[in-house]
């Protein structure tokens, strides 16, 4: 497993992803589930941005006196898009949770299941 040791930061993002997955599965509170989803998203963002890193590289901002190497701008732009989509998902999910609370008086998944 020499490859895993060399890619230890990727392994850390897998661990972060696992933490988010655990929260989604094991917690009953809908807001905690949403937090877990956000942690999983963060793991994916960090993974993709890290894959665009360059050794000794700087931010990909060119100018009169900048020299390479530069980090990949493509991964940064992709993740910028993904962050905005994640924000939209979070906003919509929070509003749905607010409506669920107004109608059912609880946001615990097991209580909702029992009431149904």
């Amino acid at each position, binding site marked *: 497993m020499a*490859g895993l040791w060399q890619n230890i930061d990727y*392994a850390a993002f897998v661990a972060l992803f696992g933490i988010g997955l655990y929260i989604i599965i094991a917690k009953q509170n809908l807001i905690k589930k949403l937090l877990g989803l956000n942690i999983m998203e963060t793991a994916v963002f960090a993974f993709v941005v890290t894959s665009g890193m360059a050794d000794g590289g700087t931010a990909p901002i060119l100018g009169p006196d900048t020299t390479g190497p530069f980090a990949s701008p493509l991964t940064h732009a992709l993740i910028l898009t993904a962050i905005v989509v994640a924000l939209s998902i979070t906003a919509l999910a929070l509003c749905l949770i607010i409506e669920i609370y107004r109608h059912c008086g609880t946001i615990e998944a097991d209580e909702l299941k029992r009431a149904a």
Partner: protein
Amino acid sequence: MRKPLVALTIAAAAVPMLFGVASLPRPGDDAAPAHAHATALYIEGGARATGADNLVTGVLLNYRALDTFGEVMVIFAALAAVMAVLTPAAPGSGDGPGAGGPAGAQVSPVVAYVVRLTAPFIALFGAFVIFKGHVSPGGGFQGGVVLGALLMLLSVVMGRGPRTPLIPAAAARWLQAAAPMTFAAVALLGLGLTGSLLGFPADPGMAWARELMIIALELGIAIGVAAAILGVFLGMRGD
């Protein structure tokens, strides 16, 4: 008996991922696919072709502008869905906000004073992030979020209820649609100038036009994002 099942599920998801990442190229490796192909071309000629020294902005608003068009549509659709989902609290129901202070809570005068004191500086910072987004870190989305946070702060401390919102409702509708409308306008402008949607004029003498189009997109995105964030916040608060 639930816990082992959860652990098993997570292990089943994580172990294949660990095997997968173990075989990836080292992060920072120059030979990795992330640095070949398109990325190499972007770094080579991106600043000249897009009118933005910040290559992330260049990729976002020029090379992949159609993706970003879709992205602002996602924000707009999310805002529309939020407005459709959140029915305003029934008037006269005791716990509805807007009766006393905003959200039913009294804001400390110290907090209100400090927010008013810092508001111009926050607005200035937001504008800086928006307008320098093509030559320095920043851009429409980031600056728009700064402005949106400022509007949220102000709508908390200014003590205005649903009757007199910070932005009049008629103006707010247009501002919330600013990002998709700006993109559509620039797309049609590109169609007129170059014959392709969202096309940027490639002529070296037209650098000013490319820069102007980037700034217009940044400004539209920023206004749209700020208004959308404020709209979601006010919707959640029950205004």
